[in-house]
Structure formats: structure tokens, C-alpha cells
């Protein structure tokens, strides 16, 4: 169905339904709002159908459709982000602070039991469905506001400067929030997927 000729996508092919399902899951994760996610996916599909002639067939159809969806979500976030008060974000970021501080001793060195162990062949996890289920669960466990900043940075590929401007927070605050998000995600994957083996420092 991945016909390389532009403008010849079979929209009734079952693979489209699978892509749509994956797009919906992605949008829900980004927006944490089932209704808005449904709207975004619908809009993205309409756009894809309307502009199918511009699909050059050089990239996979799914990759192309996901890039359209990402643009729709970015537009949506730009329109709605002003509703989030910057102060809320700052306060939200402070919440998880103690958790991470607790991993270190007073001099800022890892507690022996909290040292990150070596992850065995992490690349191979990327092709396992169970890994992605754990990954989703870990993303969903991040505090909502921390997650919003992380999603904007990593999934929508916005630069930190733009995220700060959109959300009305300082650049250094943005870095702190991103650090918390990554550290939280790492800890969750370590615990729920990679298991613990311990490492020497």
C-alpha cells in the first residue's frame, strides 16, 4: 500500500486503521485529553488526505502522517498554553524535588544503592512491544506539568527558548523541569523494565 507514486494512497487499507490507532495513542499521551486527541487525529487525517499529493513516498507513510499530527498538536499547544499559568509550572516542578535529592548524600554523591546500573543492551528493547507499554506507563506517571514540558521538548521537538516563551517560564526553570522529567523517566524504566544490578562508582 506504500505506493511510491504521489497521490495514490489507499485510505481504506487496513494499515491506515493501524496508523490511526497509533496516532490516537500518541496524541492522548501528549494532550492527556481524549476529546482533544481525537480532534487532532481527525484533523491530521483530513490534512493528510487533502495534501496526499505532497507525500513524496521517500519517507514511510506512517512517519509522514505522524509529522502532520505533530504539527497539529504543536498548533493546539500554542493556542492553549497561555491558559497554563507559569507559576503553576514552577510550583509543580518543585514537587518531585525531594525524590531526586534523596538519591544523593550530603556531598552530592550517589547513595550506594541508588547508583545507576548498566542497562543490558537497551537498543534491543526498542523493538519489543512490552518495553513501549512500560515506557507509556512511565510517561504517564510524570507529574502533568513536568510531562507537558518534556513532551514539548522531546516529542514535538521545540527548542527550550520557545517552550519558555510559550509557558512564560525562565530558561533555567525549563532546564530544571526537563532534568526532573528525564531523571524520573530513567528511574521508572530502571525499576520497571531494566531491573537493578548495581554499579560501582
Amino acid at each position, binding site marked *: 500500500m506504500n505506493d511510491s507514486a504521489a497521490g495514490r494512497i489507499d485510505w481504506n487499507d487496513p494499515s491506515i486503521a493501524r496508523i490511526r490507532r497509533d496516532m490516537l495513542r*500518541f496524541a492522548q499521551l501528549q494532550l492527556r485529553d481524549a476529546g482533544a486527541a481525537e480532534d487532532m487525529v481527525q484533523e491530521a487525517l483530513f490534512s493528510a488526505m487533502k495534501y496526499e499529493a505532497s507525500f513524496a513516498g521517500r519517507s514511510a507513510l506512517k*512517519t509522514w502522517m505522524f509529522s502532520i499530527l505533530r504539527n497539529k498538536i504543536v498548533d493546539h499547544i500554542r493556542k492553549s498554553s497561555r491558559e497554563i499559568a507559569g507559576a503553576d509550572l514552577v510550583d509543580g516542578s518543585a514537587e518531585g524535588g525531594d525524590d531526586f535529592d534523596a538519591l544523593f548524600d550530603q556531598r552530592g554523591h550517589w547513595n550506594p544503592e541508588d547508583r*545507576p546500573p548498566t542497562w543490558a543492551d*537497551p537498543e534491543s528493547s526498542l523493538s519489543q512491544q512490552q518495553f513501549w507499554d512500560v515506557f507509556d506507563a512511565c510517561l504517564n506517571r510524570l507529574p502533568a506539568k513536568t510531562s507537558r514540558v518534556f513532551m514539548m*521538548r*522531546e516529542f514535538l521537538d521545540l527548542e527550550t527558548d520557545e517552550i519558555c516563551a510559550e509557558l512564560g517560564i525562565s530558561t533555567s526553570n525549563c532546564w530544571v523541569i*526537563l532534568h526532573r522529567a528525564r531523571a524520573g523517566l530513567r528511574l521508572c524504566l*530502571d525499576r520497571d523494565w531494566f531491573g537493578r544490578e548495581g*554499579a560501582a562508582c
Partner: protein
Amino acid sequence: MLSCKEVNRLCSEEHDRPLSLSEKINLRMHLAICRACTNFRQQMKFLRTATRRYREGQRGPADD
């Protein structure tokens, strides 16, 4: 010498901004002797790889 906690911060921030020369040197010196922080840094890089894969819809086994 940077503490592990400070190194953690740099291992995240290097994905958001270019580190200064002195930050790079201090980071490298610390990583040379600390296995735990070296693991942490690799895991930050792995997160970036995973999110890239995810956002292109390439989540799980190849299916198209």
C-alpha cells in the same frame, strides 16, 4: 571536582543547550572515574533515542 548531582544536571542539559568548555572538561574528568554517572549519561542518551523513535510512530516492531 563536580559532584555526581551536578554531573546529572549537565547530562540532562547537554540535550537542551551547548555546554561551555569548562563544563565539558569537568564533565569528562568526572566521567573518567565514575561508572554510575557514565551509566546515567548513557541512559539520558538512550531516552533521546527512544523518544525520537516514538515520535516517528516507530514504536514497537516495524509494522509498515
